[in-house]
């Protein structure tokens, strides 16, 4: 009796639930393909001699592509540039972003409009940001920064000739500071006001409140910002592509640009793929921590 009841219930309850949970399958399949196929191909190419324009270059390369990569001084320069870019932008955006988030949390006249203005750069497409900065602002003769320098009796600086990497860092920071600000501001605003009032009752001043209440509350949001920015900053491309093309020399060549240049300028698929594998490994180290930190708060 009870056995048939159970079976009936299972039969009655299960089918709709099953179809419901199957709706996720198409997305899983395309993402699986999107992940596996290029990944396997990159790995495969990285062990091949393969030139896009010269079909005579072919065959198994063994470790050659990797050996060529690590013995190429450009590779190490690009790694160094990648890390310099990454760390500088992170320090600037997260540091300033945190301070500005606290600032924009204070009520002041026109705060909403000021906030909208401040986060606007994030919505500007990278190619536009880069060209505006390069031509309208940083150009030694026609740029605003040069005019300002002259007004102060200083010599205008040719940013992209003298400090190319710093110039790229400035542009990328300008793009990502609003992102950090937006995220951190949202996090600051979720801070329970009673908590801060309790701290004030306990005698905490503005600075103490920031370090003992606000900053700990922000730690999670900061780590998320750091990791998401890292994912994107490891592969900054368009800004370099339109401003310096990696130069002068290799001064602004990062890993992303190096791979692009290998593949689509020198047609060396094998070498580019070996670089790609390195990029994937780098990103995965970050991704591991990001996914873990998000997993902790995920409720399903």
């Amino acid at each position: 009796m009870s056995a048939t009841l159970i079976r009936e219930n299972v039969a009655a309850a299960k089918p709709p639930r099953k179809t419901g949970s199957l709706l996720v399958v198409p997305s899983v399949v395309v993402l699986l393909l999107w992940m596996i196929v290029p990944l396997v191909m990159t790995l495969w190419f990285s062990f091949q001699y393969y030139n896009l324009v010269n079909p005579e270059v072919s065959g198994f390369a063994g470790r050659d592509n990797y050996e060529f990569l690590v013995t190429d001084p450009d590779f190490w320069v690009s790694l160094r540039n990648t890390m310099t870019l990454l760390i500088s932008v992170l320090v600037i955006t997260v540091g300033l972003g945190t301070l500005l988030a606290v600032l924009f949390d204070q009520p002041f006249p026109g705060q909403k409009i000021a906030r909208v203005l401040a986060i606007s750069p994030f919505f500007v497409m990278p190619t536009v940001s880069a060209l505006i900065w390069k031509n309208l602002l940083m150009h030694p003769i026609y740029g605003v920064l040069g005019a300002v320098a002259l007004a102060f009796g200083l010599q205008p600086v040719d940013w992209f000739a003298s400090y190319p990497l710093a110039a790229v860092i400035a542009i990328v920071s300008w793009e990502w500071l609003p992102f950090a600000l937006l995220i951190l501001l949202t996090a600051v605003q979720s801070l329970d006001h009673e908590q801060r009032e309790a701290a004030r009752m306990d005698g905490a001043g503005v600075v103490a409140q920031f370090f003992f209440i606000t900053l700990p509350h922000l730690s999670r949001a900061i780590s998320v910002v750091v990791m998401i920015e890292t994912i994107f900053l490891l592969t900054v491309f368009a800004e370099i592509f339109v401003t310096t093309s990696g130069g002068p020399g290799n001064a602004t060549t990062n890993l992303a640009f190096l791979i692009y240049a290998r593949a689509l300028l020198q047609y060396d698929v094998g070498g580019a793929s070996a670089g790609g594998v390195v990029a994937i490994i780098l990103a995965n180290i970050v991704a591991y921590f990001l996914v873990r930190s998000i997993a902790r708060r995920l409720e399903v």
Partner: protein
Amino acid sequence: MATLTLRDLRKSYGPAHVIKGIDLDVLEREFVVFVGPSGCGKSTLLRMIAGLEDITSGELQIDGRRVNDVGPADRGLAMVFQSYALYPHMTVRQNMGFALRLARVPKAERDRKVNEAARILQLEPYLERRPKDLSGGQRQRVAIGRSIVRDPKVFLFDEPLSNLDAALRGQMRMELLRLHEDLNATMIYVTHDQVEAMTMADKIVVLQAGLVEQVGSPLELYHHPTNLFVAGFIGSPRMNLMPARVVEVTGSGVTVALPSGGQVTVPTSASGVRQGDTITLGVRPEGLHVDSAGQIAGEVKLVERLGGLTLLHVTSGVDLALTVQIEGSDATRAHETVHLSIDTAACHLFDKAGLALPRLVRHPMAA
């Protein structure tokens, strides 16, 4: 209106058994309250009746018809949720009329029913508002109104008052009772608050760990709890419990020795206890009296003056804590030593397994 029958109803999530076999009959127009501590399975049981949870085994009947495999939409029941679960994108009118709209009831009739429910619940001025523009009490009414318009066989309430403040809760309690009378409806009401259970129910079902501990009218549970759990759960302040030893068993009662010395004879049947057994004596706060000739001496630790009534918290001996209910006019103060006498007719005895020894005389209010 309808009857509801539960036969050996069970629910498990994998290896975890939540409802462990419940039999219950809900009569026509009865107001039945499921009460128990959190996690006892009372909400799960209600949701099984509603059709929101599968029934693992057993049988659920509405008006004698098996409905285990009937979906919630087709059982003809209405439910009021703890969170009210109003549709935030609909006006009060649309919220209340939603079920009728789904049932393709003509608009004119729909409006008539919604207006009628709004009138009963004094919601007429709010019909075009959205839930977010209503107060907690008003939302509560809308949730009730939503179930009224459907004219359901049975109303189900899942802790509907727990999100209201104390004053509003008392008021809504009265309104629900009035509604029950006006609508002549069968209602099942889940709560963890024994005051709600006592004041509203025709029949209380005390649940613990997925099992029914006792079913009965409020005063039946109050005066004749069948076990220690019910005795402790029903009644506020709680029943005083003290260990005692059986001295003598006769046809007119069981005589026990108190820890503080002295003896009392409680009019219960022996029910298997023998001389020398340890036993638990239970007496409600109103069964203890300050009496200079009383057998129990103790120090008053705390006095709670409620106005008409006063509660004394007395410690007797090393660690026997007793609550005594006295008149508000009594001048006993904290840190005084008092003597307490026990009203033997109001005493309960519980054997080692926690089961009550049946009292020889039924309380007149608990027929």
